């Protein structure tokens, strides 16, 4: 006989939904706040009752010759893409070697790479500046691509390693006996199967580089090489006030490509990050 009141299952669902909603509000409210501010016309929006909605901030950011938004965007795109491609390539081949081949140091290498990425960036950026100055690299894309690659390669390596570990070794062995060279095994068998892992490593490295602030601030000087996070932070109003509308419009435009990428490829990212967590 059914008991009166709300069934236990429904209660559970309500609680789960409420928890999820709370989490969403917590995570998304800054994002919506940013969108809202970017769409309002007045800088003193916090203290007014009536709000006018406008796209002026967006057109201003995109067209103003002094804000250099498109320069920053181009630089971010170049630096993040080149780093992500290079790191993905290096980490895929290295991940395969470390997870499949027997050689001295195969256990130490990933740990060493991980340790390298644990240095606080602030502790190395000063030396990097001096070094890159002497090499004439300061204020170039290369000044960011090299340190970004070194710092993100451990993330990609570990994601790839855990993903490769899921692919049965018998497939490599079968392909070797079937006449494939090591490189053929890598490109014809292992990479196609590890694509979700490799792809999620690519995306995460891309996002990390796209958002990086400290190195970009220290190693680049002007819009020729500065990236979006630095560029946006340097936005100035005409009379020294903070140009909230422009800042938020630029931030929204900087975030949207990442959000879009993540939403489109979320399946791959989840699969990639779950690599090794469950046996296939």
């Amino acid at each position: 006989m059914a008991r009166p009141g709300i069934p236990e299952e429904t209660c559970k669902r309500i609680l789960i939904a409420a928890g999820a909603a709370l989490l969403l509000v917590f995570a998304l409210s800054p994002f919506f706040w940013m969108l809202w501010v970017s769409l309002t016309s007045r800088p003193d929006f916090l203290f007014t009752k009536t709000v006018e909605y406008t796209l002026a901030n967006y057109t201003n950011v995109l067209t103003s010759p002094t804000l250099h938004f498109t320069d920053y965007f181009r630089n971010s795109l170049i630096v993040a893409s080149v780093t992500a491609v290079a790191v993905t390539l290096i980490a895929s081949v290295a991940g395969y070697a470390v997870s499949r081949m027997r050689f001295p140091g195969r256990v130490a290498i990933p740990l060493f790479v991980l340790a390298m990425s644990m240095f606080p960036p602030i502790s190395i950026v000063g030396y990097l500046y001096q070094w890159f100055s002497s090499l004439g690299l300061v204020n170039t894309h290369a000044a960011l691509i090299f340190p970004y690659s070194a710092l993100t390669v451990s993330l990609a390596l570990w994601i790839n390693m855990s993903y490769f570990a899921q692919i049965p070794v018998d497939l490599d062995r079968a392909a070797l006996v079937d006449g494939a060279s090591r490189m053929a095994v890598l490109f014809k068998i292992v990479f196609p199967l590890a694509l979700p892992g490799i792809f999620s490593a690519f995306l995460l490295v891309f996002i990390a580089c796209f958002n990086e602030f400290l190195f970009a601030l220290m190693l680049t000087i002007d819009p020729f090489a500065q990236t979006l996070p630095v560029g946006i932070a340097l936005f100035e109003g005409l009379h020294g006030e903070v140009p909230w509308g422009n800042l938020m419009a630029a931030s929204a435009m900087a975030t949207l490509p990442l959000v879009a990428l993540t939403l489109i490829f979320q399946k791959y990212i989840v699969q990639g990050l779950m690599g090794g967590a469950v046996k296939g």
Partner: protein
Amino acid sequence: MACSVELKNVDKSFFTLRGRVDVMRGISLHIEPRELFVLLGPSGCGKSTLLNMIAGLEKPTAGSITIGDAVVADPGRGVFIDPFRRNVAMVFQSYALYPHMTVRANIAFPLTNLKPRPPAGDIGRKVREAARLLRIEELLDRKPAELSGGQRQRVAIGRAVVREPKVFLMDEPLSNLDAQLRTEMRAQLKELQRRLGITTVYVTHDQMEAMTLGDRIAVLNEGVIQQLGTPAGVYAHPSNVFVARFVGSPPMNLFEGAVKRDENTRVVLRTADGDILLPERLGADLVAQGKERCILGIRPEHIEPVAAGQGNFDSRISVVENVGSEYLASLFLKSGHIVVRAQHEPQPGPAGLRFASDRLHVFDAGARSSVE
């Protein structure tokens, strides 16, 4: 073209943080062209390592491996031919089909790696021939995930035959199939090997598979060949206690004891379960050789249950199982579990066991090897 495979004094060691682990010692084998040679042993005995060394997936630590006229591995002379240059084909227990490729692409894969690569028309024709041979033509456009275990196994075999390799290497290829399918595939595999006439090295832990498939078998344990011979020869004349127990199902019954004379001066084997009367000639031989202790072995089908006092040994039948065509009687003794195979149903309770005197095996109690 069928090739011989020769292994001379092959050793294999692994080096770990805890030191050196020897997994194979002094393996020498000559496998004839067209032969179906079975490596039989329990898991961890090194049989798969041996197969991997023939394939080139593992390097021997010492010794040499020759396929046909070509030395493919000889660490002493610095020779090691990569697996992809050996022209051998391997079938894995896990099938190892490439999951992102169709059956057609899986079977074609070895051909696409050939240098120079054959024309697409030739590859297509050979894939269709292999598929026809294994009756999987209608599966060519499916992915491995859409196939049953038996179908996957056929595809794996198709991928092995398509290249017309010098040698087939099979690593427990039937272990993942259910019992009925395994029996069927076993017969088909044997027929296929005969038809193609390709030298085959087959690894299994299943003695039934070894007995039914092999032209010859090598029984391995702890990295050493225990016995090499035809299945019938190994079954009839096991060279040591390990082979005696491992080959045959149910395994050979063993009784360990002291060679003594009873009160009637007859030679008996005094075991923890009582005296076993030895046939006159065997008893005399053991006494003449001065054997004080030995292990007596007899297969279940060479023991006849008789009335107590009528056989070589009196004991008690605990359980009788009807396995369809025959009965298996079990005796739980201090010496271990003894099984008797009988055509007529024995009754549980006190019984005598009569041993076929010409089917007794005697093993040295210390070395555990056969005594002539």
